[in-house]
């Protein structure tokens, strides 16, 4: 999804304006209703600061970010490594690729209960699940980039005595960087969603766990507070992914 109107500054102004309007609308709805299921923004902020004071919020955010970062980085590194090494092993590539595509196509959420049964409920299960999702996305986009490498250029480099590692570094990685960046802008937010999915299904760790626990107690203010924290993380990750992608494309042009 590309941002197709205005500069970055006007976009952040747009973000801010939209957020302010939504929170104001929320506040007005809260003033007008007496339902206990619609907490106001004030209640949500109160609950969040309560969590913060007890140290729960910090722990939860740290847990979520750890699983997200570990899973995302492992997924990206392994997919790029596998994709670039498959270039040098075309026979293996034809065998491996359909299985990666199968992983790409399966709804990976369905696997989470199996992971819990097999591997327990620690943070590494979340990281594994997140890395699987990121792996599939980044692998497919990197592969697309590698396919568009000029084959003659590769041959010429080899002919002139470049080592495989040099060709990989100078030609393959450099060429597919744009595709890799595109993959990362999709995979980053997706990895955060995967992290929250695992935490919600598991119910004890991270921001997702906080949310499920609040929902379990019918604590509407807590549900809204956790949702707001998750949304803030989402905006942060999306922004960071866009910045990284921008850097990558500038580096490639340089």
């Amino acid at each position, binding site marked *: 999804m590309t941002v*197709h109107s205005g500069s970055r500054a006007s*976009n952040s102004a747009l973000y801010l304006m939209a957020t302010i309007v939504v929170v104001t609308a929320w506040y007005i709805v809260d003033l007008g209703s007496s339902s206990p299921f619609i907490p106001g923004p004030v209640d949500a902020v109160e609950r969040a600061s309560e969590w913060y004071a007890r140290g729960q919020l910090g722990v939860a955010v740290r847990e979520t970010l750890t699983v997200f970062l570990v899973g995302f980085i492992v997924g990206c590194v392994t997919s790029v490594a596998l994709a670039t090494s498959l270039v040098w092993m075309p026979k293996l590539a034809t065998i491996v690729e359909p299985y990666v595509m199968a992983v790409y*196509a399966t709804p990976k959420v369905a696997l989470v*209960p199996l992971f819990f049964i*097999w591997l327990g409920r620690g943070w590494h299960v979340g990281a594994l699940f997140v890395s699987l999702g990121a792996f599939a996305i980044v692998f497919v986009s990197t592969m697309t980039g590698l396919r568009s490498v000029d084959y003659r250029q590769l041959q010429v480099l080899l002919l002139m005595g470049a080592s495989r590692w040099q060709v990989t570094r100078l030609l393959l990685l450099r060429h597919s960087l744009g595709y890799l960046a595109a993959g990362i802008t999709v995979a980053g937010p997706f990895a955060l969603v995967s992290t929250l999915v695992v935490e919600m299904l598991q119910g004890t760790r991270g921001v997702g766990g906080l*949310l499920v626990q609040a929902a379990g107690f019918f604590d509407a203010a807590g549900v809204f507070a956790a949702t707001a924290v998750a949304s803030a993380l989402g905006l942060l990750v*999306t*922004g960071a992914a866009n910045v990284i992608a921008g850097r990558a494309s500038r580096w490639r042009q340089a």
Partner: protein
Amino acid sequence: MTLRARRLAAHVTVVLVALSAWHYAPNSMFPQDLVSRPAQVVPRLATFIASGEFFVHMGATTSATVLGVAVGAVLGTAIAMLAPVPFIGHFVEGLMQVGYAIPKVVLIAIFVLFLGIGTLSQLVLIVSFVMFVLYFNVSNGLAELDDATRKSLHIFGAGRLAVMRIYVFPSMVGYVFSGLRVALPLAYSVAVFAELAYGGETGIGAFIAQSARTMQPSGTIVGVICAGLLGYCLDRLLVRLVDRRAMKAGTGAIAV
């Protein structure tokens, strides 16, 4: 041997080796009560289909996915059509950008709080995903529209509605379908997630969750296999539908 036959042979070998490793692995390495065995999974699959459970669960997930995609597509397209409206269009754009960045899976808790556990909250969650995909696709499409064509249609006497009918809508067909291609697998995953997290009685996700909760790994594996197959079939079905429709519409502007 041709290349194709050799490739097929390689795949058959891989699958056979994996299956027999799974079947003959020592219990100490792969405990049977955790990973099950092919000899248990196959009969479980057979009873799953024979008892009719298969059709109940698959039907529930399929209908939720399809309905969610339909509603979300209509909503997303309608919102995108607001873009030319002077102030509102700009504001909606900002709202949708923020909404897109929010990890919407967490909203299931709020929906369950308001709408209760079951199909309705699942449906709303799916709609909240699909809407955004279609919105961004269609508004990209609208930005590509040619102003000169529109103006010359006006000069030839076409009214606002006529321009919509003969120029804008036909040009959007490709964008809507390519959006659907992205949205459908997403909607399906979200449907399964909603069933796993707050599963009612039916749906393939609910079946997986129930089997996992009662420590029946063969049931869980059967569920995962069925979930994968259904996802694949839905995607193929859409591609077939899209290809035919797109040809009928004569746009050829499908960017799948």
